[in-house]
């Protein structure tokens, strides 16, 4: 069996977990491996249907009163119990904030290795093989586990969600054996910003600004553009973040986040090597820059040489026209 951790946030199953489930289904099929999903807490009808559509054969629901809110040690302990009982060939998690926090702890508990933030996964003659970026994408490693089960986190937005329903679906409730000493840290509260924002790692479109934005107030232009583009989020280069124009949560690049959206739009970003590393795996790249020699144009699918302060208002108008 290939087991997939289903991450629930605000009662909703993360799309990245369905990406992992679809991947498990794809690689498992060739070897006749079953696909199991595991969640912590109770299963909603909506989550159950999502799992079924993407091909889960069985869903395990782990429950314990101490697991009401996320805890790395509590969750990893609970998952390790299921792994010990079910002995899966592999366990996949989405490389989300939760997955990145949980997976290494779980790996240490199970005494296995971990392939972090993978962008490809195959099962070849019984051996799991994953490809993962290093140096924020300046190079790629192909890795195999020398321990079992194979444990990996998969980068969100890279693997497709494939709907391929399983013929039957079992649901199993599992009691977890835990006491208070084993839950060593606890999420007390989730604090959101004023505006509900989509994270750049999860967005379909990332609209980024760099030094050419000239000031914090001008990021409003990007937000206005974002309002016209579905599933978009605001990104930034390191210089914009270091200048204090926007929070570091938005930073793309080697000391920020690596993103792979369908569309990456770079406004006033010259394209330093650290920045290119963080966004070169985007499907399409659009760049707007005054300098025709800017390195960003070397990776852009579509470049506009021009002043972003002229381009953005025109672009907004054209998008509005297009919509109506």
């Amino acid at each position, binding site marked *: 069996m290939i087991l997939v951790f289903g991450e629930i946030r605000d009662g909703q199953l993360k799309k990245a977990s369905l990406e992992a489930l679809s991947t498990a289904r794809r690689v498992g099929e060739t070897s006749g491996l079953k696909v199991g999903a595991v969640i912590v807490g109770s299963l909603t009808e909506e989550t159950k249907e999502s799992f079924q559509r993407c091909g889960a054969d069985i869903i395990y629901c782990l429950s314990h009163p101490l697991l009401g809110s996320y805890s*790395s040690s509590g969750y990893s302990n609970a998952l390790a119990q299921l792994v010990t009982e079910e002995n899966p060939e592999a366990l996949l998690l989405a490389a989300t904030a939760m997955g990145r926090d949980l997976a290494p702890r779980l790996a240490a508990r199970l005494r296995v290795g971990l392939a972090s933030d993978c962008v490809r996964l195959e099962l070849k003659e019984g051996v799991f093989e994953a490809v993962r970026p*290093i140096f*924020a994408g300046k190079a790629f490693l192909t890795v195999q586990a020398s321990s079992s089960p194979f444990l990996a986190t998969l980068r969100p937005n890279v693997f497709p969600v494939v709907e391929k329903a399983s013929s039957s679906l079992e649901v199993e409730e599992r009691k977890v054996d835990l006491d208070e000493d084993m839950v060593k840290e606890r999420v007390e509260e989730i604090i959101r910003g004023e505006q509900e924002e989509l994270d750049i790692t999860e967005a379909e479109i990332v609209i980024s600004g760099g030094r050419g934005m000239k000031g914090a107030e001008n990021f409003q232009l990007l937000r206005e553009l974002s309002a016209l583009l579905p599933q978009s989020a605001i990104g930034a280069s390191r210089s914009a973040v270091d200048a204090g124009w926007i929070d570091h949560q938005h930073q793309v690049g080697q000391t920020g986040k690596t993103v792979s959206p369908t569309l990456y739009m770079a406004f006033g970003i010259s394209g330093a090597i650290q920045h290119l590393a963080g966004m*070169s795996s985007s499907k399409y790249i659009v760049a707007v820059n005054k300098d025709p020699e800017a390195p960003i144009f070397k990776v852009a699918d579509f470049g506009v040489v021009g002043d972003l302060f002229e381009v953005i208002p025109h672009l907004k108008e054209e998008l509005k026209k297009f919509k109506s």
Partner: protein
Amino acid sequence: MNIFVFVKRVPDTESKIRINPTSTNIVFDGLNYILNPYDEYAVEEALRIKESQGGQVTVFSVGPDEAQAILKKCLAMGADEAVLIKDESEELYDGWRTARIIVAALQQHYPDFDLLLFGKQAVGDDNSQVPAMVAEMLGLPQVNVVTKLEIQGSQGVAYREIEGAHEKVVFSLPAVISAQKGLNEPRYETLRGIMAAKRRQIPVLPLEQLGLTEEEIKPKVAVVKVEAPPPRKAGQVIDEEITEAVKKLVAFLHEEAKVI
């Protein structure tokens, strides 16, 4: 408060990374090395806690002799002590091995601490594994990707970054914390600090003194290949009147990227 900080020597983020075609690794010759940027936030946070609450800051690095340079930088920033856990092996991209080495060093030589601070990831291996693995191996609480940390007595509150929000996490000391950009603004070394650090002898703890068998630190993830990223072809660059250029851009978004 006895605070330990774990730092790594990594290639400068401006480095071009080349692939060694005859091995399963990158070319290390000619790379310029720096203190891992995320570790700087960890060192700074340790110094701030010490300054407000008293205590001692010790910095550790697992690596070759050359890693003394980053340890000296930490001393120059204000750390009290530094220890090199000497490991001559090439980068193996395996968190398990490093975590095992750190845990053995702590258990056998440095068992008394209140806080273990790390950077949230080393730029390079990009694994983000060691802090959580160390926490699990030592049975400690962990909070990763922290942008705000408050310690009061034996209790801690850390705010960790998640998608579009922060989690407020409560825990007891001793604990493992990994630092994210935004936690603080790291200080520069003072000239006096640099001069003093230059003269310091950094104690070296050789791997052989940790009583670990080869089997125990064998990487659990094996690298079978390393490749350059697929090259991206430059597309069309439009250098003409803005209204025309934008019309073409919208057509591109619709017809090719298919996002509108």
